[in-house]
């Protein structure tokens, strides 16, 4: 505790101009990240670069692996050995990581994966922004699995959501994906670090003696305590579907409760996981639902619309997965029209339409030309639909 206090004092009493990627590093270090494995890729490379300089100074380890598959493997290994760990990548690398992200889901290994979204598919547009990985963050790895994905739109949020990503991963024993877009990752804004303190959550360890420890036992929260390797609790970790002891099983009566448990640990904690911000939606005729850099354009458009007498509002969603159904349903009920602007062909709008029970008309703005959606484009759409 004392060490943290000193660290806070040393680093965090000045205003700084930070890039999104740098703010992610600051957040990660504050959250206690002590292991980073990565592979260079635009536009996420700055995270690796800064980590390589900062981690060794706090007795952490940075390693540049041979590819993103290896990076994700090393991150899981380090987490099992007790280090809070993270990797950062962009589209193509995120695709390579998917297999091991699934491993982290089934073996319930806490870790944080930053994906700075760039234009795709494939190599796509390395230096341009996009928001095309929304569905990949949910369903990228095969099989039914729980998912947590957060999306910041300001530098302050890059910092805070990284801390929260670590907290969520430790608390729910699930990989947490942090979705940045190229605009947010490379943008610089002023930030005062550590001015409001976010509590740090560390994984719950077993309190029973090793011979009583059942590593994947169900609990009221659905989250079993986690022992680190080398602490005397010798247990088996596998990517095979396993029983409560961690041993591979093919018994239907063991498989079903396991899969349902790892879903339940997320679904019964929606209120804790879902972060968002409503801006003038209470009386809005037209509401915009946006995330990432587009949420910033949307806010400008909403202010402009209000100035011209149009009752517009904005729901900014920071938690992409689990989808913020309750908040979105509320906006759908109170507004006549809902606009979902996004830099893809319609990924979150699909979810909005899915939960819409005919309450509002849902319109989309889909921009895939590598440039950010401007306030004018959203404003024009607001004027069109109302």
């Amino acid at each position, binding site marked *: 505790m004392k060490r943290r206090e000193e660290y806070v004092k040393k680093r965090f009493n000045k*205003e*700084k*101009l930070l890039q999104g990627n740098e703010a992610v590093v600051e957040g990660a270090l504050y959250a206690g990240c002590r292991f980073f494995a990565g592979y260079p890729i*635009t536009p996420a490379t700055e995270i690796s670069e800064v980590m390589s300089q900062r981690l060794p100074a706090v007795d952490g380890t940075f390693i540049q692996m041979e590819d993103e598959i290896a990076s994700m493997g090393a991150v899981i290994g380090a987490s099992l050995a007790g280090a809070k760990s993270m990797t950062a990548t962009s589209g193509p690398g995120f695709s390579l990581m998917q297999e091991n992200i699934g491993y982290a889901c089934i073996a319930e290994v806490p870790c944080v994966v930053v994906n700075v979204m760039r234009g795709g598919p494939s190599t796509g547009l*390395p*230096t*341009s922004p996009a928001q095309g990985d929304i569905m990949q963050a949910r369903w990228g790895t095969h099989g039914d699995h729980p998912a947590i994905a957060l999306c910041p739109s300001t530098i302050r949020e890059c910092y805070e959501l990284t801390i929260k990503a670590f907290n969520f991963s430790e608390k729910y024993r699930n990989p947490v994906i942090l979705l940045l877009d190229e*605009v947010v990752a*490379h*943008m*610089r*804004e*002023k930030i005062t670090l550590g001015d409001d303190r976010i509590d740090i959550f560390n994984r719950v360890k077993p309190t029973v003696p090793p011979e009583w420890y059942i590593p994947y036992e169900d609990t009221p929260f659905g989250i079993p305590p986690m022992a680190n390797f080398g602490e005397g609790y010798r247990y088996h970790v596998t990517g095979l579907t396993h029983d409560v002891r961690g041993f591979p099983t093919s018994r239907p009566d063991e498989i079903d409760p396991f899969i349902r448990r790892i879903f339940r640990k997320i679904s019964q904690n929606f209120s804790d996981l879902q972060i968002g911000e409503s801006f003038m939606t209470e009386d809005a005729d037209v509401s915009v639902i946006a995330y990432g*850099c587009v949420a*910033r*354009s949307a*806010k*400008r458009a909403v*202010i402009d619309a209000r100035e011209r007498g149009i009752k517009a509002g904005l729901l900014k969603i920071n938690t992409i997965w689990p989808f913020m159904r309750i908040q979105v349903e509320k906006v759908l009920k109170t507004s006549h029209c809902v606009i979902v602007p996004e830099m893809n062909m319609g990924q979150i709008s699909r979810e909005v339409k899915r939960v819409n029970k005919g309450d509002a008309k849902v319109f989309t703005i889909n921009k895939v030309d590598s440039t*950010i959606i*401007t*306030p004018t484009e959203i404003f024009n759409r607001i004027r069109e639909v109302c």
Partner: protein
Amino acid sequence: MGNRYDIRLSGSGGQGLILMGIILAEAIGIYDGKFVAQTQSYGPEARGGSSKAEVVVSDQEIDYPKALRLDLLLAMNQKSCDDYYMDLKPTGVLLVDSTFVNQIPIPRAYQIPFTRIARDRFKKEMVANIIALGAISWLTPIVSVKAIEAAVLARVPRGTENLNRNALRAGISAAKKVEKTTLLTPSNFLENEDT
């Protein structure tokens, strides 16, 4: 968007535009205490290709972080000047590196040969961006000379402080000179074209 001040620094990769953007944002944001958002766009080339950095300044939190209508455009080559001058507000200021920009599309333009000054006086083309920052601090109300100097010295590599301080001052004195020559008004701009 009344209180926004939008700046675009443009040119080609390797001219140090992104570093300029960072220094400018730091000077305005940290040393002058305003809200800033700095963004950039660049191609895959580390040298060459087109590059731009944008700084948005405001006295309240900034929503849209990219430049909209420009209050200041710095063009370090002809192409960026041609591409972006249309984005200037009617009151916006164009500042060009006259080493590379020969054709000035609008009358409200300051022409300073940043790169030639860097080459002739400092034997280092790479300080052209710092010279330009000096000029910006003198010619615009958006950043103070004091703040820009503090920001430059905090960002540049150790051992190059004197070089950069001198470059900054060279920029300021070049700016003082061009400021005396009144900006071209539309009428004398035409005259100028005739001659």
